[in-house]
């Protein structure tokens, strides 16, 4: 019993000694009341240096005395069991190709070869991408937009290829007013209308893994880039466009004015042609003679005229009858001239209409007299002298140039006329016995009737 009690007492005593109550310090090797917080965090960067990966760890408490502390990683490695970290200031890192990238690894903090604290983590779930770089902003004036492009080294990597990029931009004067845009590509378009005009902007980018296997943290921010938005050009137009619009406006205005001015005279007759008015048409065909029209029966006044030969168109009998009645006997029969009907040009060209048979005849009204030529045009060409004009009346055919006799003249005037014309009026020897005026009377009457009916209708 005594032995039992003694044994129990010793056991309790030993327990008390060995247990090591908190705060017990003998020689100061151990720290004060609380244990140091050796918690740490790590992140990985895959293929950061060619095929080599990087794993970095650091204590969360910056006050930790890491003088003799070491980091070690075990499991999840190729060909080896464990690897030791290197130390750079307060950060521990390891650069190796020997990460399996499948499954968990164990990272322990060692002090003097003893494990102080360990943490199990999966390297592929703590990936921190490299920061993007080369951020550029290009202004596209034609589209009124800014195109933002940047580069990332992960485009050439094998494992962490798919990233989510966060683009932030702000007005430089607004310090904390950042606009955020998330994209999966390396190109972003910002519309000009959503930005303030004539302002300076700052823009930067960062990335995070965006795959279903690799996860992790945001990368560091890329170096900032700056760009300025152009001034408000709502009232400003492109100079070329302005010129074109002005020219177009004036062209349209000119066309409208011309259309209004020329509507009645030019455009409307083409677009809406009017039915011809016979009276007006005839009036146009036969212009009224000039007031001071010099009508003369003096042959000398017709020396410059083109005289056209009148050949046999009418009946020969009529012509002979006419000539016998009107012409003096001194006229050569061989020089009977066929008047009216058809007037033909002689050797010289004639461009003017001459007296037709319809206008001559026993009973035909001689409407065209001096100053009253209404039916036909009576052009007088004093300058154009036919070659045979001055020769004798009997030599070569001479034609009585179309001098129309006006209305109202009677047959009595006719003899007056013709004696004057005896020098001029010749007969075409080639034309014999052609009935010149056979149908003269009836056609003249018909023409007279027709023409007069116009006046009546008027």
């Amino acid at each position, binding site marked *: 019993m005594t032995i039992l009690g003694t044994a129990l007492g010793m056991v309790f005593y030993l327990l008390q000694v060995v247990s090591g109550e908190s705060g017990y310090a003998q020689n100061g090797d151990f720290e004060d009341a609380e244990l140091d917080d050796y918690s740490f965090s790590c992140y990985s960067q895959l293929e950061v240096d060619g095929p080599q990966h990087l794993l970095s760890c650091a204590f969360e408490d910056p006050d930790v005395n890491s003088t003799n502390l070491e980091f070690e990683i075990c499991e999840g490695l*190729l060909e080896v069991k464990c690897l030791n970290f290197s130390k750079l200031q307060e950060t521990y890192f390891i650069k190796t190709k*020997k990460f399996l*990238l*499948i*499954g968990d690894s164990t990272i322990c903090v060692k002090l003097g070869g003893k494990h102080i604290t360990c943490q199990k983590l999966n390297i592929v779930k703590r990936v921190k991408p490299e920061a993007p770089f080369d951020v550029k902003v290009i202004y596209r004036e034609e589209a009124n937009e800014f195109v933002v492009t940047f580069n990332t080294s992960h485009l050439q990597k094998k*494992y962490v290829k798919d990233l989510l990029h966060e683009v932030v931009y702000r007005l430089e004067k607004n310090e904390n007013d950042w606009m955020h845009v998330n994209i999966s590509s390396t190109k972003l378009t910002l519309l000009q209308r959503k930005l303030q005009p004539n302002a300076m902007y700052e823009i930067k980018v960062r990335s995070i893994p965006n795959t279903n296997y690799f996860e992790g943290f945001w990368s560091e921010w890329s170096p900032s880039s700056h760009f300025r938005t152009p001034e408000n050009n709502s009232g400003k137009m492109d100079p070329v466009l302005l010129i074109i619009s002005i020219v177009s406006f004036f062209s349209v205005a000119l066309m409208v004015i011309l259309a209004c001015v020329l509507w009645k005279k030019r455009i409307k007759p083409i677009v809406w042609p009017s039915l011809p008015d016979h009276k007006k048409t005839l009036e146009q065909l036969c212009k009224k003679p000039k007031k001071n029209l010099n009508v003369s029966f003096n042959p000398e006044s017709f020396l410059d005229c083109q005289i056209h030969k009148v050949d046999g168109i009418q009946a020969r009998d009529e012509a002979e009858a006419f000539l016998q009645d009107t012409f003096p006997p001194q006229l050569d029969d061989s020089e009977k001239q066929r008047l009216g009907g058809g007037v033909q040009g002689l050797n010289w060209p004639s461009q003017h209409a001459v007296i037709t048979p319809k206008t001559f005849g026993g009973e035909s009204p001689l409407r065209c007299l001096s100053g009253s030529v209404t039916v036909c045009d009576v052009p007088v060409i004093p300058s154009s002298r036919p070659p045979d004009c001055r020769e004798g009346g009997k030599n070569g055919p001479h034609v009585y140039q179309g001098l129309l006799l006006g209305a109202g003249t009677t047959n009595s005037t006719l003899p007056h006329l013709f004696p004057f014309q005896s020098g001029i009026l010749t007969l075409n020897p080639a034309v014999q016995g052609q009935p010149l005026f056979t149908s003269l009377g009836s056609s003249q009457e018909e023409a007279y009737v027709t023409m007069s009916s116009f006046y009546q209708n008027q």
Partner: protein
Amino acid sequence: MFHVSFRYIFGIPPLILVLLPVASSDCDIEGKDGKEYQNVLMISIDELDSMIEIDSNCLNNESNFFKKHSCDDNKEPLFLNRAARKMRQFLKMNISEDFNLHLARVSQGTLKLLNCTTKGKGRKPPSLGEAQPTKNLEENKSLKEQKKQNDLCFLKILLQKIKTCWNKILRDAKEH
């Protein structure tokens, strides 16, 4: 007679118990969703395939290994297990550091995903083949070279079979 019954009672059942784990292989495939295979293993398999430079007629050769082991239905884990172990032998070839790392990643990664509990885990992998008795240096060199080509040819085929088997596993997992 009494000692005979003891032999049967105490001899055979333990023998059965000992032999049973050897005959069976219990593999639980992790990563049937294909994440590990598509993001890690497939990359290393492709890298190895590009590193192996051999003649095109190599693929026609059928090794005894493939006659014995194939990726049949319900035997995919077993085939992958055998194939992954077989790949370890090629680490001795020391073609290059990157070659060995990719080889180790495929082998070790596959075994980790299979999570097999076969007893033969700790066994030393059989060697690729014994060296031929050398006659002279030149013949030795050519023989070694020929052997290397044969081994690389086998590895190339093995990698293709592994890829095919993984694709089959993932396809079956999607269907189910």
